[in-house]
């Protein structure tokens, strides 16, 4: 532990009970404090208008819980639903109200390509900007039969930039969270070849 402190690394004893992160200790601490602050606010003041998805140990669990809320509210079978992602115009500070159905999530990063807010499409990254913050996403529960692919890139969301994960006993990946359907002009295969992905956090 003393050695990890001197090397600016998260001590193994903490990593063992922590969440996946590649951050050095000096940025891991402030990030951890923000996460606790977010959870504390939810606990003591009630659910927020938009959820900081990366704060969670188990973001997949959050998605399921959000889906279940809707399923119960509308008395729909949960396995006949899926999320349609709508990219909102602004970032977390512009969201004051929760959506009527589904949830808002924020705090994601887009790697390998960029989001054009004015044209509402994916576009190539600006030079020297390999990764950028992504706006708030509204996850809207819709019928599973709806086609979400048309005009969209099925963008994978990972916890960290390592991307690779192992399957855990719950059937979830230790890194891959879900696919978000992000609108794009042109061929979605272009973004596949670009290695484009959404990430819950940066490495630093």
């Amino acid at each position, binding site marked *: 532990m003393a050695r990890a*402190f*001197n090397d600016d690394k998260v001590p193994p004893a903490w990593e063992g009970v922590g969440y996946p992160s590649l951050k050095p200790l000096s940025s891991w601490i402030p990030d951890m404090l923000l996460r606790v602050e977010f959870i504390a606010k939810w606990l003591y003041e009630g659910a927020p208008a938009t959820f900081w998805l990366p704060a969670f140990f188990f973001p997949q669990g959050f998605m399921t819980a959000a889906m279940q809320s809707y399923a119960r509210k509308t008395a729909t079978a949960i396995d006949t639903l899926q999320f349609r992602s709508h990219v909102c115009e602004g970032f977390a500070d512009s969201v004051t109200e929760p959506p009527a159905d589904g949830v808002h999530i924020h705090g994601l990063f887009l790697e390998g390509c960029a989001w054009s807010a004015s044209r509402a499409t994916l576009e190539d990254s600006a030079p020297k900007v390999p990764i950028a913050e992504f706006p708030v996403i509204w996850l809207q529960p819709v019928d599973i039969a709806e086609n979400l692919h048309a005009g969209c890139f099925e963008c994978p969301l990972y916890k960290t930039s390592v991307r690779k994960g192992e399957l855990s006993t719950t059937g979830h990946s230790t890194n891959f969270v879900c696919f978000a359907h992000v609108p794009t002009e042109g061929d979605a295969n272009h973004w596949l070849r670009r290695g484009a992905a959404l990430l819950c956090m940066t490495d630093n």
Partner: protein
Amino acid sequence: MPELEKLQELQDENSMHPEYRLWLTSMPTPVFPVPVLQSGIKLTNEPPRGLKANLKRTYADVSEEDYEGCTKPREYKKLLFALSYFHAAIIERRKYGAIGWNIQYQWMTSDFETSRRQLKMYLDEQELVPYAALNYLVSEANYGGRVTDDKDVRLIRAMLKRYFCPEVMNDSYRLSKLDAYYAPPEGPLADARAYIEGLPQEEDPEVFGLHPNANLAYEVATAGLLATTVLGMQPRLAGGGAGLTPDQLAQNLSREIAASMPALLDVEKAHPSTFGFSAGGQPLSLGVFVGQEIERFNALLAVMNHTLVQLDKAIQGTVVMSAQLE
């Protein structure tokens, strides 16, 4: 491996046959016995670095007889180049880390060879070029057989689709955004080799479908490795001088972190809506979820609090410095 080392040491030059030679082949391994290495002549065979070198090697192995031996010469030559480009591009993408592939796969010449033979067979046997079948065989069966991550399967399919398509027969079709890379017009084998020879040495990530920014990721990773290695060589025990010892530094940091630690999350003081109930009287799903997250955060905070106190004490010398604390 120790057995091999023993055997090697038992070999006596004076009593062995003058024509006796021992050939050993091995995968890269960190446990290969050093004495065996030292007493032999070493040859390594690594795949060439870079798309151009890779294409060059592929085309060096193509025989004149094979190149001219297909009933659809134009289609075969064009698609053979597309296949070679695909082979080189997917291998070279690995150097960009996770943005290239989620997992680093060990594709081999045998994958290429199998695909090449199937390509020729399909062209010889069928009237039209079966693009869909070829795409499936090459990207999902031959190369895809090694691919275990479903996101990588999507990618390898998208990669091949750009090269194995009817447009590739068109001499003006480009294999990437760059103008320099295309399947050369139908001609003798020497022309194809000459075309490869003329390709640029330095490769833009666009060659593999990646954004030029991908080079940043590659360079940051390379520089990071260098910095970590240099840092790893730093002495652990500083002697004398006015600076603080590593122990003092660690102690200062642990006290600083301890001072910033938040209180444990107290579910007793929860807002009434957080763990509320739905109209049907069931506990709110999101409430159940946040309850589980709170447990995980409290577990983390408790471990941090405990180990920070222990480390401080261990540095002061009042508790034993365990392996975990060190």
